[in-house]
């Protein structure tokens, strides 16, 4: 778990919401130099594009590799070298391969500094729901999400703040089946960055909106 951040909230009112690319860049800036990081499948993988080459950040992929490089293109595509989303990737100098039990021991054992995950819902206390909508006809598929959620030292979520129907995804209590309890530290959305945890929700930064506007649209108390 990360230390609570102090300092006043920064409201960027002179601009619109963040683009997906800007969100990824913001998350990338939150990752300390030299950190060992797992970027979940989907949107979080874009964070890699914004990590400085000299950051020393080492990417882990759950299917058994540290030192993962960018997506492979053309002749570099190797069916034996993919990321967790089964996308062909490349290998950086200093990489290592290991089997699945060792890879998940690394995750579960708390050795990763940061993981970045998508979410359906995050609760005010940091519960995460990102694997199953609970719909009766949905086929449940959890992959490595539960292991990552409870394993990494710091769990960052990237998601839109509102679902397509306009309901908030930052909620008092998750209504979707949980991935992990009290495991999320920060939530990056297009309109704000939140800290969540035992003390509830604190707004760290807003984009194209104010804390007051957010407070009006969310069902959770906001500290700032």
């Amino acid at each position: 778990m990360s230390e609570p951040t102090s300092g006043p909230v920064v409201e960027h009112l002179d601009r619109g919401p963040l683009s997906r690319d800007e969100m990824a860049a913001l998350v990338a800036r939150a990752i300390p130099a030299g950190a060992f990081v797992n970027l979940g499948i989907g949107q979080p993988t874009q964070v890699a594009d914004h990590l400085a080459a000299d950051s020393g950040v080492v990417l882990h992929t759950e299917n058994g590799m540290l030192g993962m490089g960018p997506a492979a293109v053309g002749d570099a595509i190797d069916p034996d070298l993919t990321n967790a989303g089964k996308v062909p990737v490349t290998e950086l100098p200093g990489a290592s391969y290991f089997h699945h039990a060792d890879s998940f021991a690394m995750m579960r054992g708390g050795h990763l500094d940061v993981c970045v995950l998508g979410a359906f819902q995050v609760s005010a206390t940091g519960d995460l729901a990102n694997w199953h909508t609970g719909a009766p006809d949905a086929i449940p598929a959890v992959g490595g999400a539960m292991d990552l959620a409870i394993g990494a030292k710091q769990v960052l979520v990237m998601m839109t703040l509102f679902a397509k129907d306009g309901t908030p995804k930052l909620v008092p209590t998750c209504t979707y089946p949980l991935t992990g309890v009290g495991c999320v530290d920060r939530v990056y959305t297009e309109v704000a960055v939140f800290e969540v945890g035992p003390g509830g929700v604190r707004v760290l930064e807003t984009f194209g909106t104010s804390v007051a506007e957010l407070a009006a649209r969310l069902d959770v108390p906001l500290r700032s």
Partner: protein
Amino acid sequence: MTLVVETTDEAVDGIADGSTVLVGGFGMAGMPVDLIDALIRQGASDLTVVSNNAGNGDTGLAALLAAGRVRKVVCSFPRQSDSWVFDGLYRSGDIELEVVPQGNLAERMRAAGAGIGAFFCPTGVGTPIAEGKETREIDGRTYVLEYPLRGDVALIGAHVADRAGNLVYRKTARNFGPVMATAATTVVAQVGSVVEVGEIDPEHVVTPSIYVDRVVTV
């Protein structure tokens, strides 16, 4: 003692109806496609398949499911863009599914191979995965008790074997192979090539020969 066999049919000979079959691979990387094809020809049915996914497209594991040979799938991630065979069987109630978090899948097989009777695992606490399972607080953290997952047979893909059965893998195709090799009574590996004993550096062996029963080049 490892037997280097000539054909994938020999490699899967004797797999009985009702067996639990561990199938390596993560997506197509490390997937023993030729052994699965041979298993379809071999005809064993009423199988429980343990694998990370539940088949892609219409070949390999998906073809085994389509042939009606599988009673139950134990996996972490059945739902994929091209998992239509599994999806159809699941929705029609023709196949049983046990979803296991990916790390638990690996660790439960590791426990089976390592003689561990059960282990307290922090993954899935407070989620539907833990429902009905024993939990315990240890040093202020809550854990779920998880049990070993054993196979009668493991079908895995590796890069190179020596004639003694030592295996090395290639890149992320390593994935579940080394763990499954420890967790099954009979371990069958399809490999890219077989070399003489002594040609693999003992420091580089990933799966020692003790775990491997049959090897076939594909």
